[in-house]
């Protein structure tokens, strides 16, 4: 079992997302995260799916995705060097001075930005790989996390390799 990041260019049509989501549920494939938004060409959407499976299952996932009529192109980013980023917004309780200092320090260490402050909360924006974001959440173990919002992974291949029509 290995984690794969699959990038898809898909026609920006109504229902395209449900075709992909439906495929994963109908064939009982795992889906860890799915992000989607239009590209610079408004007729195309770019989708990033993080999934876990054996080589055989990943091969089937890729073939089945390619078979969807709306899918234009597809790339398994995990096959080569790539960059993955995820964005998280996290709201933490900071009732005391020492809590404020500690959370600020942790946020700085992880290169987060505090984007909203109230007398009792900090809201932090953090970007990085999924593992970095997991680590930040772990680092905040002694604090009260009020809310987390994660975008899911976006990925892109390193170097000259591109996924484009």
């Amino acid at each position, binding site marked *: 079992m290995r984690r794969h990041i699959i990038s898809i260019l898909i026609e920006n049509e*109504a229902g395209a997302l449900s075709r992909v989501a439906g495929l994963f549920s109908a064939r009982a494939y795992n889906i860890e995260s799915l992000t989607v938004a239009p590209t610079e060409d408004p007729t195309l959407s770019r989708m990033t799916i993080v999934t876990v499976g054996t080589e055989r299952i990943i091969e*089937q996932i890729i073939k089945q995705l390619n*078979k969807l*009529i709306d899918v*234009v192109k597809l790339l398994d980013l995990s096959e080569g060097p790539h960059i993955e980023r995820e964005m998280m917004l996290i709201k933490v309780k900071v009732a005391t001075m020492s809590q404020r200092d500690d959370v600020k320090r942790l946020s700085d260490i992880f290169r987060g930005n505090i984007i909203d402050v109230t007398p009792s909360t900090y809201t932090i924006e953090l970007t990085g790989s999924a593992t970095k974001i997991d680590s930040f959440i772990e680092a905040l173990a002694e604090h009260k996390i009020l809310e987390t919002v994660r975008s899911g992974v976006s990925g892109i291949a390193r170097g000259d390799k591109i996924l484009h029509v």
Partner: protein
Amino acid sequence: MELSGAEILVRCLKDEGVEFLFGYPGGSVLHIYDALYQQDDIKHILVRHEQAATHAADGYARATGKPGVVLVTSGPGATNAVTGIATAYMDSIPMVVITGQVPSAVIGSDAFQEVDAVGITRPCVKHNFLVKDVTKLAETIKKAFYVASTGRPGPVVIDVPKDITDPAIKIPYHYPDKIIMRSYQPTVKGHSGQIKRAVDLLLTAKKPMIYTGGGVVLGNASEELRTLVRHLGYPITTTLMGLGSYPASDEQFIGMLGMHGTYEANMAMHDCDVLIAIGARFDDRVTGKIAEFCPDSQIIHIDIDPSSISKTITVDVPIVGDVATVLQEMNHLLITGKKQPQKKALEAWWAVINGWRAQQCMSFDRNSDKIKPQAVVELVHEITNGDAYVTSDVGQHQMWAAQYYGFDKPNRWINSGGLGTMGFGLPAAMGVQLAFPDDVVICITGEGSIQMCIQELSTCLQYGLPVKIVALNNRYLGMVRQWQEFFYKERYSHSYMESLPDFVKLAESYGHVGIRIDDPKTLRAELERGFAMKDRLVFFDIVTDQTENVYPMIAQGKAHNEMHMSPHSNCELPQSPERELS
């Protein structure tokens, strides 16, 4: 030329060369029906249930190779069509289904007869469309036919809201000749390097097997297959869906394989050293136990759908492409190449296979005082010179039809293999009979299955379709009963059919001919009498032996060499005892 959406839709079908439209009217498609009324290029066939419209279109498609076309209304019209759409999807049948939809302005408001047809059909179509703009209607229809009939074929649904077909809105008509979709370009030509590797591997085989499926029928590759098989001299087996792609009467054909395949085909699969799978998808009914599938074999697989390759069985030489095109290239290499098949090894292999054959796995009791279903199918084959179109429903009768009719031509055997849809046979036969009015079309069925779409007897009368219905009536849901006998200690839970109608009177009340046969001595004469009525639908209600089972049988999850054999065969494998039903 300016046309309304309804007129555009009908005109597109005409320009696409559609002969028959199988459908049922309703509120959301009334504009389309009005446009249909005002033309006579396309013949509309009014079925009695939307499921039958899809099966009839499906039968038409399987027999002709052209996409079947369906028109149903929104809501229940669409949901009733779903079984037929899923049936076509599982067997890769080209079909275009137009579903009416409530007007765009009320979509999502739980309007009368509204369902999310695109959502409901999504997992059982090759693709589907919701038309949002009448100016896109013609292009969408072109795309639907293109997608349905190219690559691995399949059903495509077009959901058309009522306002799109509004007769008051007219726009210029243009039907595109050709469509290019950046997201859909099916592979046709196989990889030449892989084809060469496959040919080399085939020629090293000492115990080769050729295993072909529905893809050969769908891909119109029977000629190419025949050339390959005859050139190599190898044994060939086909799946249920592939019957007829290679002549059953040919010496090299060793019968169907799989759950109810022949002893020789299954044993040869188990023992072969090189297997070539052509247009087949290693279905679980074919492979049996995956871990013991062709244990000593290297496998070549030709399929147009990359996702069929290495899905359940890992293959050594995959070739993605159109079966006919790939086989042509393969035949060319074989015929012009210097290397020949391993003659000596092949002779030894045929000796082994002929030894298995001699055990006569398909034997049954020919002296019974009850009518044996196998004997009925054999007789029907004889009476029709093996040249009829045969549709079936699902169950024991389907297997006997597959095993004993002996199809020599492709597109003649029409059954729901993948989905296993009871109720398929009669409406499918209607579609075939419309396409081939002068041919004999038979629906081999059971008393259970036929009741699932029996209302279509009425459609048959309306359009004068002289289908011959051969109902093997054993008063049981026979395949369920057989499994209960084998695997549930003869606890026959709800597999018994009580209160059957009088099928003769039923056929007569629909305006047809009914013939009941319950004596083996009159079987031939009565069948001949019925088949002689060329222009009448004849319903043969044939009272068959209740205890008969389909043999051989590989239980689910067992290997190819673990078959239950008929008590009447000479096979070495354990035979099932003959049983009397209480």
